[in-house]
């Protein structure tokens, strides 16, 4: 029972998980065709990076890594508010959420 509770997880697993989450976010950004889901993929990338910040804060027993995650969360909240407002404005102007039809600025 004691050995069961003392099991430990290498921090590299946490870092690998964070890298995989980030890559899945990038893949979502590339394959999703809805403006809102593209935006959600960006949130997924931010979360992946946050996990590696917390992991390194644990590795070096540093508080600053966690505080950085706190700042990232606040900036993500501001970004979500402004981004969703932009999405509403785009929808009002173009009446669509498909990124293939919102390509005015594409080369």
């Amino acid at each position, binding site marked *: 029972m004691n050995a069961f509770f003392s099991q430990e997880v*290498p921090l590299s697993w946490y870092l690998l998980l964070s890298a995989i989450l980030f*890559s899945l976010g990038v893949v979502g950004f590339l394959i999703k065709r809805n403006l809102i*889901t593209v935006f959600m993929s960006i949130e997924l990338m931010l979360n992946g990076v946050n996990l590696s910040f917390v992991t390194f804060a644990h590795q070096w027993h540093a*508080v600053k890594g966690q505080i950085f995650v706190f700042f990232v969360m606040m900036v993500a909240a501001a970004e979500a508010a402004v981004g969703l407002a932009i999405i509403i404005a785009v929808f009002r102007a173009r009446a669509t959420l498909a990124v293939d039809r919102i390509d005015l600025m594409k080369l």
Partner: protein
Amino acid sequence: MHLILFIVFAGFCLAGAINLLLQSHPINSALSLIVVMVSLAVLYLLLGAEFLAAAQVIVYAGAIMVLFTFVIMLLNASREERTLGSRAALRVGFPAVVAILAIIATVILHTQGLGVARLSDGITSTEELSAVLFTKLLLPFEVTSVLILIAILGAVALAGHDERERTGGK
């Protein structure tokens, strides 16, 4: 115990992220993103970040995802149509993702001196966190509050109705 909790919640995390990519309706993607965020909160708790675990649930899984689902329902977003996407994404994007993941994984797996996480590790208390946040990093903290204020104003200005629209284009 730590190992089991890690495997279970890392599995939830990856399953939610993959489900986000596979679902074609935005509301299903939003719900799987909530699964990802809540399981990340558990992983933060396993790493001893109790304040961040609470903030993750309240800010991300709560506030931000409510905003997302609200906008999805407000705009009545329907199923997305699958298209091939741009050629740039196909030729440059996917190889770049694979390359980045491979490089990061190789570096992580070859790094010496990375520690381990146990359940008996200490928890970073909110007290320690706030002691640094409100003394050394007070200015960035206050700047962020101004940023949030500007974001609120920007969101209202962007999403609010146009004055011309209301008066009929005059």
